[in-house]
């Protein structure tokens, strides 16, 4: 037994704390306590909901990925290879729409975030567990709408739904826009849930300064979700009404303005790329400290730069419209504002690299993905600055250069971070270890395949190959073929990952509670965790990256707190003394 002294608003308060060492052979876990399909479908447990999201996101990723492989196969030859031009249009539209709205947006926050956020806070669940389950079903309903569209005429407008094409197209625009509209509410409700949880459900001792950087990132993401997603919702509703009633708001022939649609769309969709990437930043911060065994460099710089990105992200949407007929003044201002985003992002990258300095780096699979991330995301980021420069963008706009940039940030950034996160938290989520050797092969295939796919696209883009084209001139053949070959390697890499992760579930080694020796609170639960995450109320006295402090001091909980959660906001526990 020990006491920890806490000072709420200056007055010292002593909490009775005890050391709780996580059991290595938990008898009851969230996976065994309630069993059967029905218990999953009706669960309000954030961990199961997180896994259901992870399953759905994986399903959509395989679907979107298969479409990408078909697209790349079609582009093997300059003329028709095996599908018709109309089918090609449908495939790239669906690839984009599925990957953006069904995979990237919910991937990290809704899947991993749901699982990890309450555990990092030492809470039993998110603030509104029923709302959490509701948002999952809203996601499912949105998906059903999209499948209805697939069954009827598909969609060929591109994922951006630009008017007037989306108002004239004969494909099922309404079903998809309604699907994405519904999906938006899932995102909004998750964001609301996370903000309330981070504010109100922190375990005793977790002050804002001890909040894991993953949670700062999810917090910034949630703010963007709350402020941007409703604008997409109203935009898509207006678009639907435009098709149903011929409202005229986006119709130039009635005095409306199609450019207004683009403004509305990008007011959401630019911040949306930060909804996708910022949670990835959070994962990188967690993994890089764990495998460097060292305190993060520049905690506050990384924490606040997430909020800065969320803020600046709302001011730059016009850079998607440099060639759309915006005023010259507006384009110039948007161009300069776009450069600003590079500052907080650069701060993050430099702080991560500085964290490595003099660390004892352990090259486990999650860490390998962190290095892949640093490499690929930096390329994606720098090419983004080039695209933000007005003069360069006029040349590069709507070419493969943009496609390559987008994939370097979204796939090289978000998806690689997601893979880092999945490999990092897999033992916690499933209680099983995957095969480290196969995982490293998988990471190598992804890295090689990815660069082979997208580096040639920078080159042909800079030479003028337009995006979304079905045919191309002969001089681009070699680039397209290299790219297609790379995409096959990428595909094999993902299949390998799916295979060894699946195998680990069946016959993987049992995971210890803290296989990486992390100081994060989530690793002080059993693997897999208890239904209520911890069997005590955790008390936190050190930051999540204090690797210079002994492990025992990270295993404290309120004495006699078997599942009766303590709650002490902003308590600053200053020291522990043996009793």
């Amino acid at each position, binding site marked *: 037994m020990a006491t920890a002294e806490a000072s709420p608003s200056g007055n010292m308060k002593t909490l009775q704390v005890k050391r709780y060492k996580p059991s290595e052979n938990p008898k009851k876990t969230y996976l065994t306590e309630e069993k059967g399909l029905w218990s999953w479908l009706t669960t309000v447990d954030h961990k199961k909901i997180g896994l259901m999201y992870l399953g759905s996101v994986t399903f959509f990723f395989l679907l979107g990925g298969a479409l990408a492989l078909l697209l790349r196969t079609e582009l093997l030859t300059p003329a028709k290879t095996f599908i018709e031009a109309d089918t090609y249009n449908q495939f790239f539209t669906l690839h984009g729409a599925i990957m953006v709205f069904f995979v990237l947006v919910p991937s990290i926050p809704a899947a991993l975030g749901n699982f990890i956020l309450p555990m990092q806070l030492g809470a039993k669940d998110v603030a509104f567990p029923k709302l959490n389950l509701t948002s999952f079903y809203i996601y499912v309903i949105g998906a059903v709408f999209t499948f209805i569209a697939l069954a009827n005429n598909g969609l060929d407008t591109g994922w951006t739904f630009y008017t007037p094409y989306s108002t004239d197209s004969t494909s099922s625009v309404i079903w998809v826009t309604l699907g994405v509209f519904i999906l938006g509410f899932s995102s909004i409700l998750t964001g609301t849930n996370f903000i309330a949880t981070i504010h109100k459900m922190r375990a005793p001792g977790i002050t804002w300064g001890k909040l894991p950087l993953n949670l700062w990132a999810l917090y910034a993401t949630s703010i963007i979700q709350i402020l941007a997603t*409703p604008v997409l919702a109203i935009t898509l509703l207006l678009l639907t009404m435009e098709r149903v009633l011929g409202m005229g708001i986006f119709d130039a022939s*009635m005095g409306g303005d199609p450019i207004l649609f683009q403004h509305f769309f990008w007011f959401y969709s630019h911040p949306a790329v930060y909804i996708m990437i910022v949670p990835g930043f959070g994962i990188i911060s967690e993994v890089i400290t764990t495998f460097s065994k060292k305190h993060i460099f520049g905690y506050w710089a990384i924490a606040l730069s997430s909020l800065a990105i969320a803020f600046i992200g709302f001011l730059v949407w016009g850079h998607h419209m440099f060639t759309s007929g915006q005023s010259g003044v507006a384009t110039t201002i948007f161009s300069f504002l776009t450069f600003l985003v590079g500052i907080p992002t650069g701060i993050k990258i430099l702080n991560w690299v500085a964290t490595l300095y003099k660390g004892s780096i352990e090259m486990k699979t999650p860490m390998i993905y962190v290095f892949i991330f640093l490499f690929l995301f930096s390329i994606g980021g720098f090419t983004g600055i080039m695209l933000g420069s007005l003069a360069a963008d006029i040349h590069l706009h709507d070419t493969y250069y943009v496609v390559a940039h987008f994939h370097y940030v979204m796939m090289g950034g978000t998806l690689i971070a997601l893979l880092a996160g999945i490999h990092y938290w897999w033992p916690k989520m499933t209680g099983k270890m995957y095969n480290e050797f196969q995982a490293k092969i998988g990471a190598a295939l992804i890295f090689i395949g990815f660069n082979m796919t997208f580096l040639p696209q920078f080159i042909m883009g800079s030479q003028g190959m337009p995006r979304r084209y079905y045919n191309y001139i002969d001089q681009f053949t070699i680039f397209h073929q290299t790219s297609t070959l790379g995409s096959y390697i990428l595909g094999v890499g993902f299949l390998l990952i799916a295979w060894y992760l699946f195998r680990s579930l069946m016959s993987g080694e049992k995971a210890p509670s803290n296989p990486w020796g992390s100081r994060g609170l989530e690793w002080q639960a059993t693997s897999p965790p208890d239904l209520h995450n911890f069997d005590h109320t955790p008390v936190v006295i050190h930051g999540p990256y204090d690797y210079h402090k002994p492990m025992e001091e990270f295993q404290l909980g309120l004495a006699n707190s078997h599942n009766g959660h303590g*709650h002490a906001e902003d308590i600053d526990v200053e020291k522990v003394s043996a009793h």
Partner: protein
Amino acid sequence: MANHSTTQTAHVQHHFVDGDQQFDTAKLGMWVFLVNEILFFGGLFMAYIVYRAWYPELFTEAALELNTFWGAVNTIVLIGSSLTVAMAIRSAQKNQTKGLKINLLITIGLAIVFMVIKGFEYSHKFHLGIFPGQFYSYEGLQHAQAPIFFSIYYMMTGIHALHVIIGIGLMMWIYVRARRGEFGSDYYTPVEMTGLYWHLVDLIWIFLFPLLYLIE
């Protein structure tokens, strides 16, 4: 004002420490949701600003077609309902279940009055041929962009009316729970959250009324 109960009671869900934490969390969540609602309407207000700046004369002419008298009556009705919903919350906090039920019923009644008046306004316009967008067939206002004004009008008031209907549903649900005696000074979270939502619905109308009806 928070619920002052520190003991575990039936209404405190398992993942909260006490009623205070549950109440504060719900309230924060509700405010965040209301911010999202404002952004949702924000898109429509933006469209309004753009087209009013482009076609100022259209907005002054078209506003004459709207019935200012009934719009004003509806404004008073909604402000009144905001008062009664606030009184309902007060009653719940003071353990006055009867007052809670009466105030909820008055609020529901006023909300229905609002919808009925809105319904008459809509049917009168449909009768004249004032439909949104391409279905516009009214002879009295021949401005080339008139359909756009009424598209904005129907979208803004229509989505607002949808919020009123949702509000009526929520208050009926609160009323049923109040009849079962679920609310009192130790637990009135759903009453207050519904009240917050209702104030927002009222507030949006307070912006819609002058922007659409009172243009000169």
